[in-house]
């Protein structure tokens, strides 16, 4: 079964730039007030393009990637989790929330100094706790004005004008609210540009993920986590869209030259949901078996935007510009932004696990997988919703599945030794041994 072929491998040339973009994001948010700018906080899925209309000096802190960064710092994370528990928040709540609130309660920013309080909160609500996350933030940091858009209008396959109007109407209200709470005049041109940037960056990320259909895979998932995250920080920015274009070109070149993510690729896997962020070494452990995790619905579809191509395969969603659409006004921009996001793959399973299973089976087929690792993630009920149903669907489609329990952001609920032992058994069952 196992080929002994060895591929050439090398680090990404644009890796350093990704690190720089991420560092600038957290620094710019913290220092925004020093330059007379504004700070806002909201989730990674919020409509970040909309506050762009307030000016170029408006910086955000997206809560999930911030909390994931805390989780990777086990010592600080434990202090944050315990601070949230002391304040009365249950230990089985989303571990991103608990890490984030802990940082607020301790008044410590992961990158040093006090926690930079946002000027306003700009959130959306699909997961049952998204708006509630910031309700608690408002309890902990009173006086921050908050606005939240309800996007729970059902799956994209059932999207109609009434549902779209509901979301777009809230967006219009939100812009009026932004003008009122910031005292700034809203610039529709900046919104339009941000919408174009968001469509470009999220379609480019999907295109990059598509390049991983190649054998050998040019990227492995541990690296992809550090790259997709830029979309969770500011998918609406030109900086991220331009970076993803550069990355796409480099990854395409790797495919052409057969530059592999790991030299001994013999087995192709995918994962699911957020990984236990403090234990990403697990992905390196897989490599000892010649196994590469080529991605997941999570890394592909949390930010990436997809559509079915003419040959029936999954590919990057066609952007408005590629369709020849020039956005002329606010309403058109908001409508495109809403429709674009309501088609997000990772929003679909909130309505039915079968929609997620279909996408996972598609990935398993098109990315030529040998097996699947499912993280039963106690830290995120939203993305783990229906995951046991997904397991059954994958098995029915003929893909071997290994499950492991854990928590993306609370190391007390992850057992590294036990998970490695499961991987050993799974890989041996698939017929692979350590290199």
């Amino acid at each position, binding site marked *: 079964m196992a080929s002994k072929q060895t591929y050439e491998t090398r680090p990404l040339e644009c890796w350093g730039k990704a690190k720089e973009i991420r560092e600038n994001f957290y620094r710019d948010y913290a220092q925004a007030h020093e330059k007379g700018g504004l700070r806002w906080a909201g989730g990674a899925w919020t409509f970040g393009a909309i506050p762009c209309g307030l000016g170029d000096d408006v910086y955000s802190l997206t809560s999930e990637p911030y909390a994931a960064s805390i989780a990777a710092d086990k010592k600080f994370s434990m202090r944050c989790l315990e601070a949230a528990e002391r304040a009365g928040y249950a230990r089985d*709540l989303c571990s991103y929330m608990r890490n984030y609130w802990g940082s607020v309660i301790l008044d410590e920013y992961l990158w040093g100094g006090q926690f930079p309080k946002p000027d306003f909160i700009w959130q959306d609500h699909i997961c049952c706790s998204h708006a509630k996350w910031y309700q608690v933030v408002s309890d902990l940091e009173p006086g921050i004005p908050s606005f939240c858009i309800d996007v729970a209008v059902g799956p994209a396959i059932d999207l109609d004008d009434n549902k779209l109007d509901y979301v777009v109407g809230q967006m219009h209200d939100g812009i009026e609210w932004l003008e009122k709470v910031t005292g700034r005049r809203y610039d529709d041109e900046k919104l339009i540009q941000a919408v174009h940037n968001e469509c470009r960056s999220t379609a480019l990320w999907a295109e990059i993920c598509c390049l991983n259909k190649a054998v050998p895979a040019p990227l492995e998932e541990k690296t992809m986590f550090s790259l997709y995250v830029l979309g969770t920080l500011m998918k609406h920015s030109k900086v991220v869209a331009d970076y993803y274009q550069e990355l796409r070109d480099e990854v395409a070149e790797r495919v052409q030259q057969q530059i592999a993510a790991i030299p001994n690729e013999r087995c192709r896997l995918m994962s699911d949901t957020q990984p236990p962020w403090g234990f990403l070494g697990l992905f390196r452990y897989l490599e000892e078996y010649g196994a590469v995790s080529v991605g997941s619905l999570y890394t592909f579809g949390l930010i990436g935007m997809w559509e079915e191509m003419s040959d029936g395969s999954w590919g990057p969603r066609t952007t408005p510009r590629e369709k020849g659409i020039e956005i002329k006004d606010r309403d058109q921009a908001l409508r495109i932004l809403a429709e674009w996001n309501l088609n997000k793959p990772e929003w679909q399973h909130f309505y039915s696990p079968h929609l997620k299973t279909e996408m996972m089976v598609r990935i398993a087929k098109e990315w030529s997988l040998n097996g699947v690792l499912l993280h039963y993630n106690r830290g995120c009920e939203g993305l783990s919703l229906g995951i046991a149903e997904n397991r059954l669907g994958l098995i029915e489609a003929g893909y071997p599945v290994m499950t492991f329990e854990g928590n993306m952001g609370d190391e007390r609920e992850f057992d590294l030794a036990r998970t490695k032992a499961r991987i050993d058994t799974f890989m041996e069952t698939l017929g692979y041994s350590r290199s």
Partner: protein
Amino acid sequence: MKPRQDRLEAIAARYIDRVPCPSKDWMERTRIQHILDLAREWKVDGAIVMQQKFCDPHELDTPAIRKALEEEGIKTLFLEFDVTVPIGQFKVRVEAFLEMFAEEDLFD
């Protein structure tokens, strides 16, 4: 439900106006005022706040609900259960909670 010319609109208004599930109770929490009104109207001395684990929206409101009740002088007992309910333990805790009120009567 208040009747309206458009019956569907009347049903929709009823859904929007009723006390919501905590998952839909944002950005301001309307449930807390409702709970405080109930407590005042029924002249309660204490409240038992029940929590089924892994129901995040309820868990997210628990600290705020307990704080609001206690600020109004209403004592709270927090009971948390999972797929199984620890009846024996709950009985002991509820008895202790009730005895606490009796003790206050004794020293009034």
